[in-house]
């Protein structure tokens, strides 16, 4: 895989395409939406500030960096206060907030690799093959993670619907 240097316009384009999803991903790691936005903004500003920045797989790098920054921030904040789980970081035109919160809860409970795979596939629009490449994981493993994740989400959402 070749190393590429991103221009300012390319970084801005990445932000437009993946910024909101990365913020939702940061929320799934335990941050509130405002903090998630800050984390994502800082990450992209850092990318803009570094002239020699050249990630081999920018999207995968963004996901990993978002996760690390979110977990670090969450660890620091947890000492101060517990955050409420009632803030929506997804929107759905026809669903109630309860449904949104149920999905968010289900996503939060997924193992990290499965959650990352779901975000990359569903909301970052990557194929399983692309995910395998950027995460340097065998395609079969990625496919399994995705399948297990969907199964768990379906179970979780189904249980909530039954309630």
């Amino acid at each position: 895989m070749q190393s590429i240097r991103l221009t300012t316009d390319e970084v801005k384009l990445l932000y437009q395409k993946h910024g909101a999803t990365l913020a939702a991903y940061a929320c799934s790691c335990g941050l509130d939406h405002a903090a998630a936005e800050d984390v994502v903004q800082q990450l992209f500003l850092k990318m803009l500030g570094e002239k020699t920045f050249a990630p081999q797989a920018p999207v995968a790098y963004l996901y990993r960096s978002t996760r690390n920054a979110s977990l670090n921030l969450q660890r620091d904040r947890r000492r101060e206060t517990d955050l409420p789980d009632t803030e929506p970081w997804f929107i759905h035109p026809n669903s109630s907030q309860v449904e949104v919160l149920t999905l968010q809860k289900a996503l939060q409970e997924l193992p990290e690799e499965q959650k990352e795979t779901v975000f990359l596939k569903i909301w970052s629009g990557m194929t399983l093959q692309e995910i395998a490449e950027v995460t340097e994981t065998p395609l079969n493993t990625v496919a399994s993670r995705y399948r297990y994740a969907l199964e768990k989400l379906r179970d979780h959402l189904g249980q909530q619907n039954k309630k």
Partner: protein
Amino acid sequence: MDPFDQETERYLREFQPRAIQPLEVGPKDKNTLSRRLAVVALLVLLAGTLLWFAHREAARPKEAANIRPEKENVARGRRFPSALALTRLALEDNEKLDSVLADQSREVLPTVQGKQSMLRVLAND
């Protein structure tokens, strides 16, 4: 893909992440500006320091110049006879040589008459 998976996938796609603010590149510009200001301030400080040193160095020769003329005046008063003249005197007139050397030694050697003379101080001790 499993039809259940396809259905779940379709359902998940209906949810969209909440929009976020556009990327603000302002803080970076602010940082750049403050960095530039810091560099300018450093350069001004450096230039000021250099000027101060230059001024100080320029003042030193003046002090030396104030002192030097006195020394030069003293030196000018001394009319040392040339080595050739002294040799001639030594050969022709020993007494005159002695008197010339005595005169010169009075001018060249420090006097013991001054109040702050080191010889006087030592003599007192």
